[in-house]
């Protein structure tokens, strides 16, 4: 490993290079006091540098494989993945194409045209994550980061009430249910949704940085919904290179959060037009480099008179579409030839 890539300050790097230490292997057999004298720095600083130098004969027994530290065999990972539960979307068809629902430890991007139901799906997931595991949830809390102001509390209450009704109806049939679980009232669902309103891209970056500390203090959070990830990055950004850097930084941090705390991260994205194949076509916003950032990607679109969800990108799921409907009760399966659904 080259000295230039070490996580130390530029001045120290400069001193190392001018003293002739251009690669780490040259440092491996030095003592801190020797290095400190050579470079004319303090012993503590020398210790810092030497921490990154490879030491022969030292075996890293702190977890991970004995050949490469930090690695895991695919067999172990398979067991881990099987234990992961998923969050239901309340539409059996969408759950089926997703292999059971939105999965944890992954970043899922959901995009679509305005009015297709992205916020609806976000709210439905924020409610569903609170359901007990046998109902398709994770029994946890939700963080809802709102960048557009489209979070309407009355609608959340409406969806929570419908969810509670369904749970009651199901529990009346199933026999193996603990007494306490039916005790959740619709308003309790609202209490477990932690709502943040973000008004600029600086706040958005700051919040995502802060989530690491916040979630370690609120360990029962099991899903983070960002609605939408795009909004503040679409305007007044003349420096596109900066935008790409900031977005990839954000994507990495969210991915780390998902893995570290074993939660699901759902990012809602908008659409924009792009010139391709001789005509303008719709595509998800934020550019091509962003499209690599997420693990899974779902596109919501209109097909005739019905709403469909399409899996555009996934490492393990097949590309498939499923119809769904947005009803007064939330996201549900699409019942064809349905009669007029009237608001109560």
């Amino acid at each position, binding site marked *: 490993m080259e000295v230039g890539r070490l996580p130390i300050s530029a001045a120290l790097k400069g001193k190392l290079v001018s003293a002739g230490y251009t690669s780490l292997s040259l440092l491996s057999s030095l003592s801190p006091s020797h290095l400190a004298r050579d470079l004319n720095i303090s012993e503590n600083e020398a210790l810092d540098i030497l921490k990154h130098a490879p030491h022969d004969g030292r075996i890293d027994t702190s977890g991970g494989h004995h050949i490469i530290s930090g690695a895991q065999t695919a067999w172990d990972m398979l067991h881990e993945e099987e234990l992961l539960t998923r969050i239901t979307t309340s539409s059996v068809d969408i759950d089926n194409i997703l292999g059971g629902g939105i999965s944890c430890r992954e970043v899922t991007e959901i995009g679509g045209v*305005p009015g297709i139901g992205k916020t609806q799906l976000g709210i439905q997931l924020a409610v569903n994550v609170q359901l007990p595991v046998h109902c398709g949830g994770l029994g946890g809390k939700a963080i809802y980061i709102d960048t557009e102001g489209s979070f309407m509390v*009355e609608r959340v209450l409406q969806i929570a009430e419908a969810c509670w009704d369904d749970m009651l109806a199901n529990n009346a049939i199933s026999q193996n249910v603990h007494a306490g679980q039916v005790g959740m009232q619709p308003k309790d669902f*609202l*209490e477990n949704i932690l709502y943040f309103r973000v008004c600029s891209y600086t706040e958005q970056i700051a919040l995502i940085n802060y989530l690491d500390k916040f979630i370690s203090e609120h360990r029962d959070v099991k899903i983070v919904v960002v609605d939408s990830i795009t909004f503040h990055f679409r305007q007044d950004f003349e420096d596109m290179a900066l935008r790409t850097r900031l977005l990839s930084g954000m994507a990495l941090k969210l991915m780390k959060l998902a893995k570290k705390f074993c939660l699901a991260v759902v990012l809602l994205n908008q659409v924009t037009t792009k010139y391709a*194949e001789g005509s303008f076509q719709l595509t998800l916003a934020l550019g091509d480099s962003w499209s690599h950032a997420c693990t899974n990607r779902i596109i919501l679109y209109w097909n005739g008179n019905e709403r469909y969800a399409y899996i555009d990108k996934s490492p393990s799921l097949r590309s498939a579409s499923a119809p769904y409907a947005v009803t007064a009760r939330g996201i549900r399966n699409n019942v064809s030839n349905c009669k007029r659904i009237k608001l109560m």
Partner: protein
Amino acid sequence: MASRPISEMGLPKSIANVFAARSIKTAKDALSLTEFDLMELADMGLAEVTSALAHISERVSPPYQTALSLLEQRIQNEQLAGHLPTGLKGLDEALFGGIPFGVITELVGPAGIGKTQFCLKLSLLASLPTRHGGLDAQVIYIDVESKFSSKRLIEIGAQSFPEIFYTRGMAQEQMAGRILVLRPASLAEFTESLQQIKLLLLERRVKLLVIDSMAALTSGEFEHGASKINPLGWHISFLKSVGELSRIPIVVTNQVRSQSSDDTWRYNFQVGTRHRDLEDTSKYDSQLIAALGIHWAHAVTIRLILETISGERFIKVAKSPMSPALAFPFSITSSGISLLNDDGIEVVGQEISTIHCDGHSEIIHSDTLQFHRQ
């Protein structure tokens, strides 16, 4: 929050000084750089940079609230939990009480359909005292196309609320006196007025903002597909944040334009009808879409489409986070707008976002009595 100075964040002195020396003065400056950029710039190690960024991020992050406390706050502090009733029963029910506070509600439709009439009615309603369903506050009406008519406003008031307007002689002056009309001649003037409006809004005296119309501000300047930077981008964010901070309804009208062959509403994986539609150019003139592009369409929270189908006018809830797509037939009367049917017709699929317009051939070629009767 973003422009908070680093010096006030309580960072260790040495770090704060280094940042200041490198012109990293506000939180925005610091957070716009990646960790490696900062290490390079400030000559610090990774651990120090990470902890400084974590510290700044914690200070700049917005606080959280549970959804429950949000609901309770609104029920307690705001009229009808944050809605301005429009007086149109079916529409108010669909919107859970009326035009919601804190978000942008858009009225879009062809010329002459009744958008300005709707805005006049809303302005009047907001200026009424609370016991009559109003907000008892001032209204700011930004009249870009010079369509505001005070005479019509008084007529609507007198017809809708005769008991207030006839028994109390002062009422007319009082209500009309609360509506401030601005007529910006250019986008620059509009931008400037917005800054002044923000102050008024934060003082809680103005409780409704109407912009009629947003599209007229950029007509000619905004070219679809050509420029990447939207001239209204800043205004959209500003309106949204100001609306939320002051928790007032913002109503904006938008124009329509015909669909050009450049427009598309399909993704590249959707096969079938795309090729056929592109060749059928005769369809384009009759298909209307809302102006201002897709970025605007995402930014508004509620979109109400006003359209005519076979001589009947409809107001349709095309985009709303809390209601299904319902269309209500309406007519324009001396007391403003009134719905002919409060139940609403459900609209599905692509019909939700289409805007219908009958055109004028019926009038020009008609010899039926309906256009001559008054």
